[in-house]
């Protein structure tokens, strides 16, 4: 187990270095921040000065070394756009994105698994067919369209829910949460559904096909032959065995939900890191873009690590294999 984790950590470090290089490469390729920052009336001398103070004129290897050195210490410099420290900007916006992502995942799991189980058990039932049709819509409609449709219905026409923002936020230490106020809960409903819809249909379809598969296996027949109740067979034996792929997908998808919440965050003006990233792209705010890439890279690496460890817990075969390998 420990050897396994160490191996994974080494791999993770290599991945992070590659991500850092790509992030750094942006400084050379996404345009001239001085043209964006300076405004039209800044005299020529001060433009030259600004380039110098941003370190844009140094040779590339020097800049890369400086970038990695600072990144390791969590220093990404000041945002070109707002002159705030980049690390602080990201940390301040991270709670919003994490809350939204986790909420979306909860919605996806809480609705997706029961639907999957049901349509797996009764594939011919009309409700199952209806679910399959609806899930097709969930998979095929783009996120921004779903978001805007929801806003149109629930905010503009019905006026029940807010169309943008995060509601009232309460600060607990360094964490700002919207989950302790009524307006916060109201505000998170639409974006969480929008963001979770695709995952929900994915999980539902996954659970359904796994259930169909598992229900055909011999041990389910034996379990039935032993006279176990339907409930014990379905949930104790069948569902448990469908969960390994679900965990994999959920883990990987949580990463992409966080990373690609950009669209949902933009549609709902959700003040998270995705929105920050988008605005930074528009303003050629390279330090923020670079830091975002590195942070998201780190997140993916960590999530994959956790998922790998979870396999150990869920699947006894992996445990016995590594025990054997250890014994050799």
């Amino acid at each position, binding site marked *: 187990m420990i050897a396994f984790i160490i191996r994974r950590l080494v791999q993770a470090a290599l991945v992070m270095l590659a991500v850092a290089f790509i992030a750094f490469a942006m400084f050379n390729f*996404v*345009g*001239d*921040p001085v*043209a*964006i*920052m*300076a*405004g*039209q*009336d*800044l*005299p*020529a*001398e*001060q*433009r*030259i000065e*600004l*380039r110098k*103070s*941003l*370190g844009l004129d140094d040779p590339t290897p020097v800049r890369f070394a400086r970038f990695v050195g*600072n990144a390791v210490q969590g*220093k990404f*410099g*000041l945002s*070109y*756009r*707002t*002159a*705030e*420290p980049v690390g602080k*900007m990201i940390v*301040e*916006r991270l709670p919003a994105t994490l809350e939204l992502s986790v909420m979306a995942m909860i919605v996806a799991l809480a609705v997706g698994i029961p639907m999957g189980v049901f349509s797996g058990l009764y594939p011919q039932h009309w409700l199952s067919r209806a679910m399959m049709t609806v899930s097709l819509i969930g998979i095929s409609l783009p996120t*921004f369209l779903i978001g*805007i449709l929801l*806003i*149109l219905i629930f*905010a*503009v026409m019905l*006026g029940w829910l807010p*169309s*943008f*923002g*995060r509601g009232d*936020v309460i600060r607990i230490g360094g964490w700002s949460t919207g989950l302790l106020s009524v307006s916060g809960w109201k505000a998170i409903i639409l974006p969480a559904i929008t963001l979770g819809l695709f995952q929900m249909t994915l999980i539902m379809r996954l659970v359904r096909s796994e259930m169909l598969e598992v229900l055909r296996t011999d041990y389910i027949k034996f379990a039935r032959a032993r006279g176990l109740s339907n409930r014990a067979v379905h949930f104790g034996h069948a569902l448990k065995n469908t969960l390994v792929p679900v965990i994999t997908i959920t883990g990987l998808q949580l990463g992409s939900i966080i990373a690609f919440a950009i669209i949902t965050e*933009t*549609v*709902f*003006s959700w*003040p998270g890191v995705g*929105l*920050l990233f*988008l*605005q930074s792209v*528009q*303003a*050629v705010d390279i330090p923020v873009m670079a830091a975002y890439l590195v942070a998201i890279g780190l997140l993916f690496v960590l999530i994959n690590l956790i998922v790998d460890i979870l396999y150990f817990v869920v699947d006894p075969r992996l445990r016995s294999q590594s025990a054997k390998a250890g014994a050799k």
Partner: protein
Amino acid sequence: MQRGKFLKATLVAAVAAVALLGAQPVSAKTFKWANDGDVNSMDPYARNETFLLSFNLNMYEGLFRRDKNLKLEPALATKVEMASPTLWRWTLRPGVKFHGGEPFSADDVVFSYGRAAGKGSNVAGNFVSVKEVRAVGKDVVEVETKYPDPLLNDKLSQIGIMSKIWAEKNNAVQTADMTKNEENFATRNANGTGPFMLKVREPDVKTILVPNPTWWDKPEHNLTEVIFQRVANDATRVAALLSGEIDMVYTVPPQDVDRIRKTAGRRVLEAPETRIVFLGFNQQLDELPDTNVKGKNPFKDKRVREAFHRAIDVEAIKRTVMRGQSRPSALMIGTGLNGYDQAMDVRPKFDPALSKKLLAEAGYPNGFETRMDCPNDRYVNDEAICQAVVAMLAKIGVKINLVAQTRGKYFAQILRTASDIEKSPQIAFYMLGWSPGATYDVHNVFEALIQTPSAKTKKGLFNAGGYSNAKFDELADKVEQETDKAKRDAMIKEATKIYLDDYAYIPLHQQVVIWAAKDNVDLVQLSDNYFPLRFVKMK
């Protein structure tokens, strides 16, 4: 018993009524508005961009300010005089206090101008002509200039005055230093003398302002609180206005104008913006990039430039691409600014047949091939305008390869570099927009866009195509220093005629600024796209 109960009930009701009244003053007017981007900083010198300057001038004030017609009027100064062509003197308004209670004096002005002209500031361009700023006693500020600068008061009216005591106490004596990993206190806090005070600042989420109870002027607004929120997505921002969550939208996408107009209780405000969007030619390189004309540059020939000008139907662009939301212009300066001349604002007639003839005379009877560079996220419908232009030029036989890209890359490619002004960028035909920033005067256009790019004089930094006319340069230099208004206006006229006759550029149009608001909001829309909250009234 019965009577006692009744009395008690009445009393309870009365108390409840009083409590209700106390909790909700009848005059509570909270004004909520949104824009697609946030104010990037609370520091008034952090960026030279309209939105930031406009927002921060609600909290910080200059010595003069602009009224509803963009004319200067006294603010923190009560009067200004020119003691000599190079010496300006302002008399300050007595008894003014900053939001934090610090008294306002000449020291604050000297400090603020030093900060705005200093390291890290992006509004230093306003101080190019300034030699020295000094306080004469508590109530008088003098500025000595290196040469006569008739526009100094216009430029300095943009510079909000910051409290010296406050800045020194909070270690914010200069604007944020990009080389350090530290935030500057003034980035998230503000202490000016203006009509509004900063109450809450949450970057990218919301910024809340409240009225300054000790403001020196009588408030025209009736607001008790202003909440500014940033709603990035166009459709969501419009939806929030339609659902009533916000009272006013600062940036309205053109495609939603009709929808807002049709909604009861909402209205659209439109005015031509001061910025002119125009097309430029490279007249400097000896051979254009990406062309089939080798060994010479067709744009050096005035006839070719005229042919292009006459081949572009700006009314058609207005009708189709801009959906009516543009004001075609023949000049490089917009209406309402100093130097705009209605008599000269007449475009050469749209005449593709004549264009073809001109091209043939110039030696290109079958047209030629070249490239056009265009931004795709800077001006309203920029890429679509360029596509329309390409199609129109195809009709006179000019084949254009259009390259549209995001602004960060675009400007890096087409603009001159400050360290090597005279070197021509590798461009042929391009689009740019310009508004005479701080001065509201045509000289800024002359100096930045039309004068010959020169490393010595530092003029022509944004004259990307390198148009050059010695006579024009000479006139523009005179305009810069002439303090006699009549003489100056005559020179402006003469200079304008020169660049028009040379077909130096193809001015296209002024964009229309579109705002939208609820009917119960009364506000003033200015053509410089500034939005002073002090003019907002809610019914």
